[in-house]
C-alpha cells in the first residue's frame, strides 16, 4: 500500500525532503515504518532520539502500535508550544 509521510522541522533535514511516498505491506505498524525510515536515513534515528516526535495519522495522534492504512498520511511533528 502507498503511504505519504510528512516530516516537520527538524526531521525533514535528515531526509532532504519534507514529504515522501513510500510503498509498504499491508498490516504495517507505525513502529515498523519508523524502523524502516531510520534504517534508510541514518541520522533520522538520532533526531528521533533527541527530539521524540508526536505522530499523527491524518488528524489523529497515534502511537507505534497503530496500523497504517492505504493512502494514509503520517506526520512526524516535534512537539513545541513556546511562542
Amino acid at each position, binding site marked *: 500500500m502507498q503511504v505519504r509521510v510528512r516530516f516537520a522541522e527538524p526531521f525533514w533535514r535528515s531526509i532532504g525532503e519534507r514529504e515522501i511516498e513510500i510503498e509498504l505491506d499491508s498490516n504495517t505498524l507505525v513502529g515498523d515504518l519508523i524502523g524502516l525510515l531510520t534504517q534508510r536515513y541514518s541520522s533520522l534515528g538520532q533526531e528521533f532520539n533527541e527530539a521524540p516526535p*508526536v505522530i499523527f495519522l491524518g*488528524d489523529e495522534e497515534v502511537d507505534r502500535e497503530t496500523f497504517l492504512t492505504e493512502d494514509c498520511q503520517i506526520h512526524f511533528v516535534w512537539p513545541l508550544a*513556546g511562542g
Partner: protein
Amino acid sequence: MEFKSTVAIINLTTGESQITNTPTELLHAYLGGRGLNMAYLRHYLLIAGDPKEIDPLSPENPLIFGAGTLTGTIAPNAARFNISAKSPESGILGDSNCGGFFAAAMRKAGFDRLVILGRADHPSYILLEDGEIIILLAENMWGTKVIKAQDLLKEKHGPGTISAVIGPAGENLVRMAAVMTGKKNAAGRGGMGAVMGSKNLKAVVARGGAPISIAQKDTLRAVRLQQQKYLKDSKIVQVLGKVGTPLLYEVSNRLGAIRTHNSQKNFFEDTLNAEEIEHYVDKMLACTSCIVHCRHRNTLGGEGPEYSTIGLLGANLGIAPTDQVIELNNQVNDLGLDASSTGTIIGWAMELYQRGIITAEDIGNPIEWGDFETVHELIDDIAYRRGFGDVLAESTQAASQFPPVARDYLIAVKNLPQSDPHDVRYFKGFALGIAVASRGADHLRNRPTLEVFKLPEDVREKIYGRANDPNPEGYKDKGLIVAWSDDIYAVTDSLGICKFVTHGFNSPHLLGYDHFSDLISAATGFDISPEALRRLGARVIDTERLINADFGLTRTDDTLPKRYFDDPMPARKTKGHKIDRGKFQIMLDEYYYERGWDQDGQVSLESSQEIDHLISLLGA
C-alpha cells in the same frame, strides 16, 4: 568593582533630569530589568496619587525603561530591556520586554534605567550620550513611520545611534501601540507606545560609547564560552537558528490548537508553515550577544514574521497567502502597532460582524474572513484613528462602544488581548498561565511549555521540585508548574536574557538559575545563589500582584475568555476540549497556594511588608 545601577529621572514637563544610583539593598533584591522596573513603577504610581485614578495617557503616568543586569555584556542572549507604565490598553500593570540593540546602547551611554515623567510641550526625543541627557525637538519626525524615524535619527546623530521610537500608532494614542527598537523588535504589549505618544515623546536615542563595567572579565568570558557550547548542543537552539519561531505553527496547527477565526476554529492552512515562510527569508539576524539568531529579515522589506504574527494576522483573520501575512507583519511593525493585539482585535471585530452584532453600516465596510485588502486598510485606519479604525484603536476598551454581548467574543484577559496564537483550551496549564499572568493574557510571563513533551516522572520531579501529574489535558498540579515558570521568567526578564535560552521555555536543556548565578557573579561581582534567585523571581511576581491590587484587581480577574469555558474546540486531536469552570477554580486555589497567596489571591503580609520596605528605599 561595586555593583551599581544608574537611573535617570527625566521630567519632560520641566526639562530637568536627575541622575542617581539605585539604592544597593533594592538593587540586590530586584537586580534590574523587569524586576527593578516594578519597584520603581509602584513607587512612582503611588507618588502620583491613587493608581486606580491615574489616566494612563496623562503626564502623571510614569514611563520606565530598564535594562537587564546582564544586558549588553557578553552573557548569552543578554539583549533585553523592559518598558513599564500603567497600561492604556488594560488599565493595569503595563510591562513589555524587548530585544534588539537599544538596551545595550542605553547602558553604554551610561544609563541602566530611565524614569520618564510629565509631558513635553512639543514633540520631542531624548538623546542619551556619554552619561548626558539632552531633550531635543522631534518636530521634523513627528508623523513618520518607524523605519523612517529610525533612519532620520541615525542620519542626524551618526552611525552607532540606536533608537526606541514610536510610529503613527503611538503618536495617535492607539491603545495597542508599541515601542520599536528596530524594524521588528518591539516592546509591543500593553500600549507602551501610546504612553510615549501621550508624553509627546517620539524616541529615546542612545549613543553608546563607554564599555559596560565587568567585575571579572576573564571569568565572564569563560562562563560565556561554556554556556554557549551547552546551548549550541540544544536541539531547539539549532532549529530556532534555522527557521525561527514560525516552526511552532505547524506543530500547533497539526494538534488543532491554532486560534483561527477568533477561536471559532482551531486549525488553518499549511501555507503558513515555516517552510513557506522560508521562501521569503533573506537572512537570519540576531540581537545583542545572541547565539541563536532567530529573527528573519524578509524579502518584502521588513523583519519577521514570528509565529505570533503568522497566527494572529494569518489564521486568526483567515488570511492564508504567505506573502500577504508577511506584508501585514511589516505594516504593523512600521506603524508601531502590537501585532498580537492588532490581530486579536481585528479578529474579534470580524466575528462581531459575522454575527451581525455590528453591521457594515456601523463600520463603513464589511470585514470578511480572509479579506486582505480590507484588513490592510483597517490596520492603517487603526494607526491613524480613521473611521472604524478609530474605534478599534481603543483595543479591548472598544467593547464599551459595542452591544454588551460583544464581550463574550473577546479573546482577552484583564483587558489585554491574548498574545500568542495558541488556543489554550487543551493544555490546562497554558490556560491557567494566561489567566494569572500579571499583565493580562500573555504566554511570555509563565507558559509551562514543557507540558508538551510528556517528560518522564523523574525528570518532571527534578525540574519542578516535587512529583507532579504529567497529563497536560488534566487540571492537577498546574498551579505548581505555572508558579515555577512565573519565577524563572521573571528572573530572565530581570537579567535581560532572552527566553529562547531560558530553562523551561521549549526545552529543559537551557540556562537555569545556576547558570544565571555564575553570570551575575562574573559580570557584577555580586554573589547570589540559585535559590536566592528563585526567591527574587517570586518577589517580582509579588510586587506585580501588589501593583495590580493597587489598581483594584482581585481573584475574579484571574479568569479566561468566555469562549474558553463554554465552547469546545471543534476539530483534530484537541476536539471537545474546553475549560471546566469548577476545575479552573481548583487550579487557581492550587496556584495561589504555590505562590504563598491567600485564597483571594492576595500577597502574604510578610512579603508585602518586605516589598514596602524595599520600595521605601527610593524615598518620598
